[in-house]
């Protein structure tokens, strides 16, 4: 059992010893290890994205009582592969009046924050690329960078829909960032550390979703909005803005945005798992598998939400964020603070 | 090995670039950005001093946080005013601010 | 201690000003009476002080002492001695008559009297304070009201003249201020008390330096050539009462300051600089008289004659002996009365004729005999006719100066001759000679306008016939000082 539990850790250790045995310097070994982690994470991410596209369409079909993709391969299982090939060979168009440099750069950058964020996600026991001591803080910092490529894309396209979409994306992401940050604060207050591993460790007895149900709820809502997913997908709301920021994007550039969206979905689910659902803790099965399961459930939940709720109107969206979630998350901090303090002093 | 001097020189260079920008730029927003650069030079200074001279204390880091906060407030206010100005006369170049004798 | 008489003298005008502040604007008559009343109080108090001054005892009397600013050892200390007594009296007389000279005032009466009374309080304060700080303070109090008085109620380039006068006086006072501070810091006594500062032994270099500051500072006021140009402009532009006060009293502040804060404090410095003063004052006398001769405006004639006459005062001061300084102080008094009379009379004429150009007049004596009489008396006083106050003063100055600077004394006497020329010319042209038909219906001075003429003429004659009333008092203040500080010092030579 423990072999299985530590499978990936063992593999990493093995690689490390091998490399050291080859007589490489410390720095080079570390470098190689980081690249290895990176390759692993990228691989998982890519795979997840590819799979999730199909899964999402299947789930959508299931929810809407229709078959979903079913032509390419058995049950449509090769649909994504076909899509990928199509996207790779599509002509790339840069509109004549676009701001070329920014237009190019936006899709390149859109993936970076997500990849950066994965660096501190503990996929299992000891399975964390770099366990910095300000983990959550880092996460928040990096995830807020995600707004910038959207603004860049919207602005540089020189298209009214894009610009409006970009502005909306920024406004929305910025607005929902506040409750998200505050909801995570509740967890930090209980743990007393910003380190991801410490947070997971603290949940060995009880998951924080039980201690911080309100925070969890806020987080899920805010995270949906952060990913620009329905019902909060007004930046690309096709019924009003054609495709929002993506209107002018074609081919691989568009694919990168698409990829980033699914990578983000994985990310927020993974964070939710780590922060509220006990991370990789779980009985019997190996830790990383538990993590996989929990994340999958979260992803399913997000998809479920997407295909269930209608799109929120832009003003309702902002009102909801500022006038409901922010006060609620503030109240949550107050209550958590008092609760923790009482627990510590009186010893309840 | 990176020593205190390296940080100080970096910060001095950053400060000078910021100062030059603040004095030579025409656009109000560009001036603000240059000033932010100067403040960041200050932050580097602070953190480096604390790290090398009084390790264990966090005075410089705390100071740096305060500086960041103040810089944010300053920029928020400045941008609000810049917007007001832009609405009045469609320009944010400082040489266009000539309703009064300079 | 009894009644704080000196405080009464100083504060009565201020009280009057405050009361006028609360009188409605259109009650001209009441305002004027209130002004007359409070200046009258000052006058009566001054006369009382003058009369009851104990000459046998000498020195400073009627002392008042209230600690004022602890930090600098500044005290509100008042007192009068032989030098200040006549000047206090002079001020009281001139302002009292000045109020009556402005009886005809109709424009912004309320403010006029407020400023006038403030001004006069400052002047009184200078003469009675024993503390160098207050001495300076009171002097500056007088300046700004002057600006507004001339600027609003004046004539002939009034704004220019007012600004020029103010700035000149302030420049002068700035020099004096530096001198005052320097003395304070140098002695390190922590006091501004003039007596204490007089007793201090200064080293010669400092004396020369400080006396120079005082000389320039008060030289602006006297006015010493070439710092005099503000004074004729100012005289001419000012309204009657202000001209009277200005020429009659304010210029004396300079002479008084030079004696009090100059010679008394820095005798050695005075000795060092006295040739310079002597030379410059001769320029004053002769140049002033010459320019007066060339003037076409009646007030300018008197203005430049003042410059010339103040030259005598400076000469007396420069000579640095008992007699000459006695003369200088006496001349201040005499010239004050005389010139106030002049301005009062010119004021009357201007009131009626609305011009002051000498050439326009002629034979006014027929229409206005009283004015003519006054003018002749003043004129005669001006050229130093025996029997009038000025003669005594000028005589003393010449005698004193001759001891020290014989050549300068003789040159100065020539000034008297020139004075005679222009005074008689004016009297002849304006009051006698062919009658200008244009002025046939002019009326003579009467009522309130007579008050200054009568009082001032009376004073001139009184002290002319009984000079000892004045000279004894002055001598009482000058002599002890000269005997203590200037006895062993030889002055002069060369001139």
């Amino acid at each position, binding site marked *: 059992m423990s072999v299985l539990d530590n499978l990936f850790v063992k593999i990493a250790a093995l690689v490390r010893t091998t490399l050291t045995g080859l007589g490489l310097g410390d720095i080079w070994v570390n470098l190689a290890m980081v690249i290895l982690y990176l390759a692993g994470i990228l691989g998982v991410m890519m795979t997840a994205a590819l799979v999730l596209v199909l899964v999402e369409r299947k789930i959508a079909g299931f929810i809407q009582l229709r078959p979903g993709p079913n032509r390419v391969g058995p049950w449509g299982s090769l649909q994504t592969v076909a899509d990928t090939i199509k996207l790779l060979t599509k002509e790339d168009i840069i509109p004549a009046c676009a701001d070329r440099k920014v237009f190019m750069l936006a899709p390149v950058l859109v993936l*970076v924050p997500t990849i950066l964020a994965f660096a501190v996600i503990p996929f299992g026991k000891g399975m964390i690329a770099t366990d910095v001591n300000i983990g959550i803080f880092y996460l928040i910092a990096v995830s807020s960078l995600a707004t910038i490529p959207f603004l860049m894309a919207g602005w540089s396209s020189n298209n009214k829909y894009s610009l409006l979409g970009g502005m909306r994306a920024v406004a929305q992401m910025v607005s929902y960032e506040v409750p998200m940050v505050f909801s995570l604060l509740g967890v930090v207050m209980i743990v007393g550390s910003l380190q991801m591993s410490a947070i997971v460790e603290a949940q060995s007895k009880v998951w924080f979703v039980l201690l911080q149900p309100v925070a969890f709820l806020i987080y899920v809502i805010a995270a949906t909005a952060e990913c620009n997913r329905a019902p909060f997908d007004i930046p690309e709301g096709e019924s009003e803005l054609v495709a929002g920021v993506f209107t002018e994007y074609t081919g691989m550039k568009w694919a990168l945005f698409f990829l980033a969206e699914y990578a983000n979905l994985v990310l927020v689910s993974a964070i939710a798992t780590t922060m509220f659902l006990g991370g990789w803790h779980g009985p019997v099965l190996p830790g990383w598998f538990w993590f996989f399961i929990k994340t999958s459930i979260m992803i399913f939940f997000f998809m479920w939400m997407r295909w269930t709720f209608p799109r929120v109107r832009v003003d309702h969206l902002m009102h909801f964020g500022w006038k409901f979630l922010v006060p609620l998350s503030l109240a949550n901090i107050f209550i958590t603070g008092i609760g923790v303090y009482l627990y510590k002093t009186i010893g309840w | 090995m990176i020593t205190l001097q390296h940080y100080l020189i970096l910060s001095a260079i950053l400060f000078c670039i910021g100062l030059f920008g603040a004095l030579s730029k025409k656009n109000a927003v560009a001036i603000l950005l240059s000033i932010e650069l100067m403040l960041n030079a200050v932050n580097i200074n602070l953190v480096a001093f604390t790290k090398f001279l009084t390790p264990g204390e966090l005075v410089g880091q705390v100071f740096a946080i305060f500086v960041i906060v103040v810089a944010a407030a300053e920029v928020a206010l400045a941008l609000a005013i810049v917007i007001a100005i832009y609405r009045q006369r469609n320009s944010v170049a400082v040489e266009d601010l000539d309703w009064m004798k300079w | 201690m009894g009644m704080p008489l000196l405080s009464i003298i100083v504060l009565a005008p201020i009280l009057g000003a405050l009361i006028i502040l609360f009188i409605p604007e259109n009650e001209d008559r009441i305002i004027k009476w209130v002004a007359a009343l409070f200046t009258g109080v000052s006058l009566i108090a001054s006369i009382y002080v003058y009369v009851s001054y104990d000459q046998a005892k000498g020195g400073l009397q009627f002392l008042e002492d209230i600690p004022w600013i602890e930090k600098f050892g500044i005290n509100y200390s008042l007192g009068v001695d032989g030098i200040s007594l006549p000047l206090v009296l002079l001020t009281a007389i001139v302002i009292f008559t000045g109020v009556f000279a402005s009886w005809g005032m109709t424009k912004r009466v309320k403010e006029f009297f407020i400023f006038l009374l403030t001004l006069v309080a400052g002047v009184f304060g200078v003469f009675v304070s024993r503390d160098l700080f207050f001495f300076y303070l009171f002097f500056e109090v007088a300046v700004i009201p002057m600006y507004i008085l001339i600027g609003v109620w004046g004539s002939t380039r009034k704004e220019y003249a007012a600004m020029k006068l103010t700035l000149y006086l302030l420049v002068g006072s700035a020099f004096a201020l530096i001198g005052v501070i320097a003395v304070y810091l140098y002695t390190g006594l922590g006091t501004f008390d003039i007596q204490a500062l007089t007793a201090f032994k200064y080293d010669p270099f400092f004396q020369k330096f400080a006396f120079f500051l005082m000389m320039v500072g008060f030289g602006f006021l006297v006015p010493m050539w070439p710092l005099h140009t503000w004074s004729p402009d100012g005289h001419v532009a000012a309204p009657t009462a202000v001209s009277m006060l200005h020429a009659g009293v304010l210029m004396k502040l300079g002479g008084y300051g030079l004696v009090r804060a100059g010679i008394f404090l820095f005798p050695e410095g005075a000795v060092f600089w006295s040739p310079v003063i002597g030379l410059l004052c001769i320029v004053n006398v002769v140049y002033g008289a010459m320019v007066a001769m060339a003037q076409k405006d009646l007030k300018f004639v008197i203005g430049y004659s003042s410059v010339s006459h103040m030259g005598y005062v400076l000469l007396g001061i420069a000579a640095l002996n008992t007699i000459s300084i006695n003369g200088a102080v006496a001349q201040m008094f005499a010239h004050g009365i005389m010139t106030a009379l002049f301005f009062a009379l010119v004021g009357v004429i201007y009131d009626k004729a609305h011009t002051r150009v000498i050439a326009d007049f002629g034979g006014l004596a027929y229409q206005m005999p009283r004015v003519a009489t006054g003018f002749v008396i003043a004129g005669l006083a001006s050229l130093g006719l025996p029997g009038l106050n000025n003669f005594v003063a000028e005589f003393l100055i010449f005698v004193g100066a001759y001891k020290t600077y014989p050549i300068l004394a003789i040159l100065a006497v020539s000034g008297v001759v020139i004075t005679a020329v222009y005074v008689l010319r004016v009297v002849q042209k304006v009051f006698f000679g062919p009658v200008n038909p244009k002025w046939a219906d002019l009326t003579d001075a009467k009522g309130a306008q007579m008050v200054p003429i009568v009082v001032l003429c009376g004073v001139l004659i009184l002290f002319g016939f009984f000079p000892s009333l004045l000279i004894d008092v002055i001598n009482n203040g000058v002599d002890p000082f000269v005997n203590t500080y200037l006895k062993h010092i030889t002055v002069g030579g060369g001139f």
Partner: protein
Amino acid sequence: MLQQYGAIGLFFIFGIIFGFAALATNWLLRPKKPHQVKLETYECGMETIGETWVQFKINYFLYALVFLVFDVETIFLYPWAVTFQKLGFFAFVEMFIFLAILVVGFWYAWKEGAFEWQ
């Protein structure tokens, strides 16, 4: 310590490389047939009228400002959240005063209509 952040730096670099690599692959494979009409700005088939880069609603700016306040506040809240169990009562109350002040600001922004989307 430095190594941890070095790893993050590598992540950053590779993230960018990944993006460029994807674009490069696309560049190799894709057809290139530019045409004027293709390069026009898409506006549901209509001609584009007027400038795109125009002034937009002040609302966006207001949201940004309020966000800035909260975001900066985070810098203070997180260190406090980590250590407030050790700091004792004073720090506890102090931070609540801080939060209360923030709430007043929030209330003000609300009342003044910063959150009204017009």
